[in-house]
């Protein structure tokens, strides 16, 4: 939070009247206009704003879809077709929502990788990071619940398989897993009852996410943004006001993101889905090859890599929850991978691991995919449990610049190259 005197000046008598009673405009001005942002932020820092857009877009399109959707086993599949064919612009809004889920995950994965690369989870941003992981978990739950709603074959069998993960708890306390699964289902199998409660929770969770996002942004604005050097802001010259500088850059990133988004929505709306989900749910026939949506594939690969029911579930859940401990697993005092040659290598190996697991997750559960799934599952956990703690101790970081300004402007106190040139080249 800005501790300095606010530069907010109410422009009208009405604004002044409000400001003395509920200074919302003053707070927004302080947090989103004059808020100091490091002057060296690159485009990887535009995903926060993009993710806010994604959440808002999913809520708006979701509210619209809920107006036309029927959450019953008999009608759900048909009502999605009804939305796509009969409802005015339903073809577009439904595509926005379905593609939007994928785009949301594209953005959140880039956002998480950005955090891992530049050490954005390190003190004093641990709580900020943990809130982010909680948002990620809530997003996964929301996406899973939402994927059930079209009530196609993949929806139905995805729900069956994922809810059955809880039955692995029978290996700890006999009967407990079954009890939990039947409680989730509201029956002895996945039925319309399950669909109905999933619809209710799918509508609820985005608002939980919105609440977490507010806390996430609050925590961000207390600690301030990290930046590509990982250095703390030391002087006012290290920063520029959020408006227009960071906002303008965010807008550019957002437009590029929206181009990709719109390309999927208008030209290949069903590309990211699975053909089996165009077959209505049938509790008597399982499709030959069950796969989750692409954004869950790496975790799915980890689940299948472990040849034990409970072990697989534990590994998969750990793969997500381990992110919570990253601030304390990393022992390095240097934040940014830019100055950590070994960590940089480990980071890109980790990215490759995640992509490889994603690809393996889309393959059938047979050799040689199982072997490689096991290999990359090990690599996945090795990044967190070996690379993060050990590299911080043995690695010699490269020389850090003395300040953010120096990293931008060079060691002299001169102006950045090009700053003197006229902005108006005629």
């Amino acid at each position, binding site marked *: 939070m800005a501790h300095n005197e606010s530069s907010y000046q109410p422009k009208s008598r009405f604004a002044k009247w409000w400001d003395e009673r509920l200074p919302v405009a003053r707070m927004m001005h302080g947090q989103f206009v004059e808020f100091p942002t490091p002057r060296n932020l690159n485009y990887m820092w535009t995903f926060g704003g993009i993710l806010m857009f994604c959440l808002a877009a999913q809520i708006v399109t979701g509210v619209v879809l809920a107006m036309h959707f029927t959450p019953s086993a008999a009608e759900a599949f048909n009502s999605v077709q*009804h939305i796509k064919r009969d409802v005015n612009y339903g073809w577009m809004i439904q595509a926005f929502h379905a593609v939007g889920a994928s785009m949301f995950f594209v953005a959140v994965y880039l956002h998480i990788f950005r955090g891992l690369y530049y050490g954005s989870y390190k003190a004093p941003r641990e709580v900020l990071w943990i809130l982010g992981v909680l948002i990620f978990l809530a997003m996964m739950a929301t996406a899973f619940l939402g994927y059930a709603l079209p009530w196609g074959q993949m929806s139905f069998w995805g729900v069956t398989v994922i809810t059955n993960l809880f039955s692995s708890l029978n290996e700890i306390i006999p009967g407990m897993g079954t009890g939990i699964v039947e409680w989730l289902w509201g029956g002895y199998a996945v039925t319309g009852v399950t669909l109905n409660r999933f619809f209710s929770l799918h509508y609820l969770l985005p608002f939980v996410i919105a609440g977490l996002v507010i806390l996430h942004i609050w925590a961000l604005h207390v600690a301030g943004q990290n930046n590509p050097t990982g250095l703390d802001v030391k002087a006012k010259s290290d920063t520029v006001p959020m408006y227009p500088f960071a906002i303008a850059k965010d807008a550019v990133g957002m437009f590029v993101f929206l181009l990709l988004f719109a390309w999927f929505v208008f030209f290949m709306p069903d590309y990211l889905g699975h053909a089996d989900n165009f077959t209505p749910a049938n509790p008597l026939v399982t499709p030959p090859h069950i796969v989750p949506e692409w954004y869950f594939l790496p975790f799915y690969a980890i689940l299948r890599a472990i040849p034990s029911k409970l072990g697989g579930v534990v590994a998969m859940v750990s793969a997500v929850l381990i992110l919570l401990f990253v601030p304390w697993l990393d022992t390095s005092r240097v934040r940014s991978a830019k100055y950590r040659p070994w960590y940089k290598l480990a980071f890109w190996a980790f990215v490759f691991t995640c992509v490889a697991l994603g690809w393996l997750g889309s393959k059938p559960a047979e050799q040689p995919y199982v072997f490689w799934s096991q290999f990359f599952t090990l690599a996945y956990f090795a990044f967190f449990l070996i690379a993060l703690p050990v590299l911080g101790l043995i690695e010699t970081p490269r020389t850090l610049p003395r300040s953010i300004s120096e990293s931008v402007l060079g060691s002299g106190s001169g102006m950045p190259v090009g700053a003197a040139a006229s902005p108006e080249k005629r």
Partner: protein
Amino acid sequence: MASETEDPNRRDFLVVAGNAFAALGGAALLWPFIAQMNPDAGAQALASTEIDLAPIKEGQAITVLWRGKPVFIRNRTKEERDKAIADDSAVLKDPFARNLSLPDSAPATDADRVKAGHEQWLVLVGICTHLGCIPKGQSMSDARGDFGGWFCPCHGSHYDTAGRVRKGPAPRNLDVPPYAFLSDTKIKIG
């Protein structure tokens, strides 16, 4: 290098043009989110209904559903018709025919409330023009109000045997939907 900048300069133009473009795009995107609440293709497909009139005997009435609304079809008796025609000259609360097949200015005569050649058939949207209740009077045993047509139990509007409001809070005569006789015993509403 030229250092002198005119006002407005090229950057001002780009900012205004860019913002205007984004605002237009945003406004255009708003429309689908409003339009989605309009009646969908499924509702529009139900926009016309065909009704067989043969089973309706003189003095009887049936109620059918058209676009989700009740439509009253009444085979009027001679007395009912004569009474309605006699009341053409009475002081009417709403002097217009409210017949969607006729101009708005058509007077509320009995002739303008029915189809020529099929004067015994009265076809009305069965929704009280006050606040949307369904008036009583379709069944022989119903209270039909002071004018022998329909009586709305919600707030006491009385309609006569041509469906014209004669008493009570309703402001307008019952609407006559667009319909046509396909044959002497068959009509198509909508």
